[in-house]
């Protein structure tokens, strides 16, 4: 894992001291709320519906056991004993006191964490594939590049007051688990025909009230040009992005209004000017950063296939968990484990302090001290010996963390919605809970197979409903919650935005509507190999519309 160098340590410590002083001045009345608000936002402190909320950055979703224990400690000491993992691979605490925030930030700095640039119109935490470095078929681990981007974008003076927030995602795998085509910049690490490393570059993707699939503006950018090209994109956006209307201020609107080709030419021209500057990455520097992310020294383990098969046969619960929550690892004898934070009927993405401690213990013992946060609001143990799977399962089971549903219908993404969020127009969590309970039966979940339900409580789409195979958007209509359904969205490499299927459903009807859609899928699919998304793309919306609303 990356460790802070002296520069990182100093700038985080300086920021903690600066913000602590600002909080003290605010509480003493030396700063007004108008003066203070932009300062607290730059440090991840929001004022939500019920209380302040602190968003802590988890760079590219990677955590050590020590960091996870610190998060547990913060949840226990300064909050209500739990935290909420988000669709941006971060963690949010929903109840911190403002006067405690300086102490929290000091504790975070002890484990090389902070909340800088988790809000505001700046470059946000860079996200990455949660299977980075261990996925069976990736070109290269994307996290060294994410780390280089983190260093470049942290407190970058030119880009602290952009027209709007700016999100960068990186993947190293053709199979896109990081939704790079729905980010302001998406980088796909790849090799060219000569075997050299570089990136396909996408810009202008995003969700929110105007969902857009990103445009590819470079098929291959040499790795040494990562920062110069990023700087060129940001500079053009910073100059031309709209500041007159916050709803039209994201780069996706600039790309749409200018045209990707015209914008690409401007970016390339700027890039040509600055390419041969200090921004050109020295190869030995890339390799130096890469060394932090080198795979651990995997012990040579017996494959354990026979023992695994026997254990699966003896324990149907373990068998189901392996089937859904264990993925192929690039190292022989090892597996990737997804820890579902979606127990049946529970709020998606929440973990109690005790559960965080348990995950830290398990990661230390069985996963080379490493944990990932996925944008699907789950945790990942990236380095588990296949022979240890049963022990890991038992340990997770003891902490209520062994839900066997990763990628299945009850593995739902939901934003905090109107239960917490000041912007929300409807609740999301209770809808997720009701759907989860309706589809709790394990055999039925297995039969339905891969399907992604994503729920947002307002048009800002933090719950990624636009890319849900079934997306649900909660709005307020005539004083009541109303839920609109979209079908056929996908955040993977086949990126698509869901189609609105028709008029919305009241909260008491939305679960039935989802069940109707699932039943039509089961009825019309060409066998269990055709998952929901494939079936929808083949069938179109008509059969689903007819089942929901009757024949036209």
């Amino acid at each position: 894992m990356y460790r802070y160098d002296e520069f990182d340590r100093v700038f985080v410590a300086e920021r903690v001291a600066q913000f602590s002083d600002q909080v003290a001045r605010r509480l003493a009345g030396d700063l007004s709320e108008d003066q203070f608000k932009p300062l607290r936002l730059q440090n991840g402190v929001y004022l939500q519906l019920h209380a302040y909320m602190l968003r802590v950055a988890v760079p590219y979703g990677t955590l050590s056991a020590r960091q996870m224990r610190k998060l547990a400690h913060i949840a226990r000491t300064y909050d209500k004993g739990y935290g909420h993992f988000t669709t941006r691979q971060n963690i949010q605490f929903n109840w911190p006191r403002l006067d405690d925030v300086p102490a929290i930030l000091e504790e975070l700095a002890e484990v090389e964490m902070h909340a800088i640039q988790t809000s505001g119109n700046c470059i946000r935490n860079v996200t990455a594939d949660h299977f980075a470095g261990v996925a069976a078929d990736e070109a290269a681990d994307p996290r060294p590049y994410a780390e280089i981007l983190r260093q470049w974008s942290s407190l970058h003076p030119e880009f602290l007051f952009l027209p709007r927030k700016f999100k960068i995602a990186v993947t190293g795998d053709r199979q896109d688990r990081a939704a790079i085509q729905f980010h302001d910049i998406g980088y796909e690490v790849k090799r060219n025909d000569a075997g050299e490393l570089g990136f396909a570059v996408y810009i202008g993707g995003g969700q929110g009230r105007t969902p857009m699939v990103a445009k590819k503006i470079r098929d291959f950018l040499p790795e040494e040009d990562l920062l110069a090209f990023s700087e060129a994109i940001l500079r053009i956006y910073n100059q031309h992005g709209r500041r007159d209307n916050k709803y039209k201020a994201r780069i996706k609107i600039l790309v749409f209004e200018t045209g990707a080709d015209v914008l690409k030419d401007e970016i390339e021209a700027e890039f040509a000017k600055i390419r041969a500057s200090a921004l050109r990455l020295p190869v030995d520097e890339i390799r130096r950063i890469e060394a932090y992310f080198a795979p651990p020294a995997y012990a040579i383990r017996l494959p354990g296939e026979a023992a695994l098969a026997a254990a699966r046969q003896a324990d149907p619960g373990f068998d189901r968990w392996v089937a859904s929550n264990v993925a192929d690892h690039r190292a022989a004898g090892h597996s990737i484990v997804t820890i579902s934070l979606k127990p049946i009927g529970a709020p998606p993405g929440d973990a109690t302090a005790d559960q965080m401690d348990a995950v830290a213990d398990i990661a230390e013992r069985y996963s080379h001290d490493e944990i990932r946060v996925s944008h699907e609001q789950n945790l990942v143990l990236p380095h588990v010996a296949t022979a240890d799977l049963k022990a890991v399962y038992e340990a997770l089971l003891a902490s209520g963390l062994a839900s066997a549903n990763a990628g299945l219908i009850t593995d739902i993404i939901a934003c905090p919605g109107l239960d917490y969020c000041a912007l929300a127009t409807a609740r999301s969590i209770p809808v997720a809970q009701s759907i989860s309970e309706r589809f709790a039966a394990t055999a039925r979940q297995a039969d339905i197979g891969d399907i992604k339900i994503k729920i947002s409580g307002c048009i800002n789409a933090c719950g990624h409903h636009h890319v849900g195979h079934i997306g649900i958007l909660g709005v307020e209509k005539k004083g009541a919650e109303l839920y609109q359904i979209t079908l056929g969205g996908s955040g993977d490499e086949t990126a698509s935005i869901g189609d609105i299927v028709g008029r919305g459903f009241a909260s008491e009807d939305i679960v039935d509507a989802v069940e109707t859609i699932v039943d039509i899928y089961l009825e019309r699919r060409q066998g269990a190999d055709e998952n929901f998304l494939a079936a929808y793309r083949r069938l179109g919306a008509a059969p689903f519309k007819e089942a929901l609303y009757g024949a036209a």
Partner: protein
Amino acid sequence: MHIITANRLADGLVVFLTGDGRWSQIIAASELLEDDAAVEAALETALADVRANRVVDPYAVEVVVPAAAKDPVPRRLRERIRTSGPTTGHSLARSHKRAA
């Protein structure tokens, strides 16, 4: 009918303006404002407390007082949730270790 709400500066928690110009976490303690003039006057009091760094973001909330009970109930769902807390999830059964 309206009441005035805000968030307390130091801990961010939801509070309501009372008849004697203080802030309470209990909606039942809030002053019921019958007309626009009363709302305007109460908002003036609230803004003075913003300047005095006691609360932030004050605004008026429309409420009804059901005949059966005396406690005012906000008309909008958003305000009802803001008054009584999240309707689900881990915060329900948990108290804050550092509650004032």
